[in-house]
């Protein structure tokens, strides 16, 4: 039984890639033993952006639908689970399900409006921004969740470990997020090699041709939106219980949407490792630049962002497909790869 089951997940994956994945996972599992709390918090940020980037990648990287309003789903997920926990004491795991349903419902509304009426490309992106914005304004006036004054969760005391209620230390949240990231990675890997993955690829590359071939484009684009929004909502639940405070202005902000998008773009759009690599590079680059500028005595306000922007420009100019495709070639992983969609990773 084990063979076929493993085969389901490892089908077409080169042995070298499996070994590297195993090493990476082992390193990530052991990381809290070696890192101080600051580096652990940086790693949590890496995983958070890797996870949400992976969720966004389903919509844009796989199905070709550009969303610039993914903070909508982060915010909805965060607020739903946090409000249920705070007002009714509902376990955050149960709250997560509700969060996914609410986010998916909003995703369905966005998707239906756009795909039913043929809104695509930048107009679709504008629609996603509009939804995030009016939801932010709505939450500013929603007293049940604190309105503009914010929603605060009771913070736990030192040393408490309560996985059931997501109350605990940074290490607990780290492993939780690592599990989420791995699960999202495996799910996306599976989807990419399934019928739905190939349909998404066809839609992404040429929607008219896909439709001519008999693919129900509306349905499959909706699937991408629903899955992506529900997955992103889980990231929001994590955010709510890790930071313990939510403000509409921050959680639904355009800036947050852009943060989500950057990882997959820099790492490699439509690839599996792209979001993970992009999140790692961007977060570590930002932290490294901060330290470097500080050591050079150039820690002026905004200097980090300027250098960060220059580095991003360099990546986009010199590696337009992102970092992962080049790195994959360098590691010799593309040679051994079996048949599969182009740019898969």
């Amino acid at each position, binding site marked *: 039984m084990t063979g076929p089951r493993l085969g389901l997940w490892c089908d077409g994956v080169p042995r070298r890639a499996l070994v590297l994945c195993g090493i990476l996972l082992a390193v990530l599992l052991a990381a809290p033993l070696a890192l101080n709390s600051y580096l652990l918090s940086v790693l949590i940020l890496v995983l958070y952006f890797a996870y949400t980037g992976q969720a966004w990648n389903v919509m844009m990287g796989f199905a070709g639908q550009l969303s610039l309003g993914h903070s909508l789903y982060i915010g909805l997920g965060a607020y739903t689970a946090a409000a249920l926990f705070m007002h009714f004491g509902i376990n955050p795991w149960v709250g997560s399900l509700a969060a996914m349903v609410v986010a998916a419902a909003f995703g369905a509304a966005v998707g239906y409006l756009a795909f039913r009426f043929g809104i695509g490309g930048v107009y679709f992106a504008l629609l996603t921004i509009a939804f995030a914005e009016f939801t932010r304004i709505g939450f500013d006036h929603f007293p049940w969740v604190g309105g503009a*004054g914010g929603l605060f969760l009771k913070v736990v005391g030192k040393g408490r470990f309560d996985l059931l209620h997501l109350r605990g230390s940074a290490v607990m949240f780290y492993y939780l997020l690592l599990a989420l990231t791995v699960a999202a990675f495996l799910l996306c890997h599976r989807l990419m090699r399934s019928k739905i993955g190939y349909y998404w690829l066809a839609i992404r590359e040429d929607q008219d041709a896909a439709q001519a071939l008999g693919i129900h484009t509306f349905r499959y684009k909706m699937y991408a939106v629903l899955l992506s929004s529900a997955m992103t909502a889980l990231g929001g639940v994590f955010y709510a219980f890790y930071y313990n405070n939510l403000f509409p202005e921050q959680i639904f902000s355009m800036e947050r949407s852009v943060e989500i998008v950057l990882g997959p773009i820099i790492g490699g759009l439509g690839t599996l490792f792209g979001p993970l690599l992009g999140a790692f590079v961007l977060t570590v680059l930002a932290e490294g630049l901060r330290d470097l500028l500080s050591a050079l005595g150039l820690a002026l306000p905004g200097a980090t962002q300027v250098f960060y922007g220059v580095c991003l420009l360099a990546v986009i100019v010199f590696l337009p497909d992102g970092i992962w495709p080049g790195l994959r070639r360098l590691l010799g992983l593309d040679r051994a790869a079996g048949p599969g969609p182009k740019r898969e990773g």
Partner: protein
Amino acid sequence: MSEKNSASSGQAPRRGLTRRAFNAGAAVSAALVSSGAAMRLARAQDAALKVGVLLPRSGMQGAVGQACQRGVDLAPELLRQLGYSVKLDLVSVDFESNVDQARAQAEKLIAGGANLLIGAFDSGATSAIAQVAEQKGVPLVINIAAAPQITQQGYKYVFRNFPTAPTLVRDGLSLMKDFFVATGHTPKTAVYMHVNDTFGQAMNGAIGKMLPGLNMPFKVVENISYDPAARDLSVEVAKAKASGAELVMLTSRLNDAILLVREMVKQRYSPMGIISPGSPGMYEDQFYATLGKYSDYCTTNVPWYNPHEPMAAHVLSAFHKRWPKDRPAGYIFNIGFTFEAILIAADAYARAKSTNGKALADALRTTHIDKHMMVGGPIVFDAQGQNENVHSVVLENLQQQPRVVLPVAAAEAKPVFPMVPWNQRS
């Protein structure tokens, strides 16, 4: 050797401790112990308290964070002038107006040996930092952040020297009544104009809840919200004028406050007064520079420095020395509260005589600073770590300068109300 010498002298060898030897040993030990303790104490006092200051010096809140940073820049010299001999190693960190960064940078500061944290202007960021501080047992002194929940979490290491949002609004409204009593003129009707951003909506909600309970002497006849980025507010001002309200109650930002007053002058709408129950805009440099004489008599009820406190004079003098081209009005609110947070840290360290987090927190809990810069009673923290003695003042623009006109104890000028109509200003 000693045994041999004893034997040769014909005396029985002494195996036990003699009284003389015991006394000598005890004296030496006592001297060593006490000198060690003294050395440790001296070392503790000589050691610098590493203070991590977290501010949003770039990003959306960059301007405010940089204003707060001026308080940090002035602090070492000011503390020396005020006679604080404790050494502070102030490490400022920019969290880029980003909550994720605020938490990560707090972790970094603590990992780097920070004994105490100060920050962070924004309530979301401050809340994230507070969790880290509490978990690590490192005290956090909040300079500015108004969300009441931050000090309602049962934290042991979090202290706030800033009023909560409800206190700000309540003070802002109550002072209006004092203002009317002091001038002998009371408007009967008011229009409430406010920006429709997060801050404006929060103020609108709080005012809506509190107004009925405060028995204000006027009736709010119209509530007008507008976009803070609007380029034209003629319709809003026309609506306010049409309401016939005698008072304009305003929650604004800078640019819209300028636009509003300009439009009121243009439309010849001259109410008895324009009063903000606690928002920025009307006491900022650009407001005076752009509006000139029309900036006068606009009033803001806001926490402010006490012009009669010698410490405030010290701070203003240091400000003028360091930034001779800048007017302090646009910075002093942020400088004042940030400097006071550092003052609180220095005071606690001087009493704790230790960089240990628990010792510092214990010292912070017993803080009692009578002489400080901002208007209010002595700086003391209640069981929740909140200083309830910070109060707002009535700040009226007179001769294109913000002047404290109430409370009387802090006043530097007499309140003027109703304001001089636009067309009668020379």
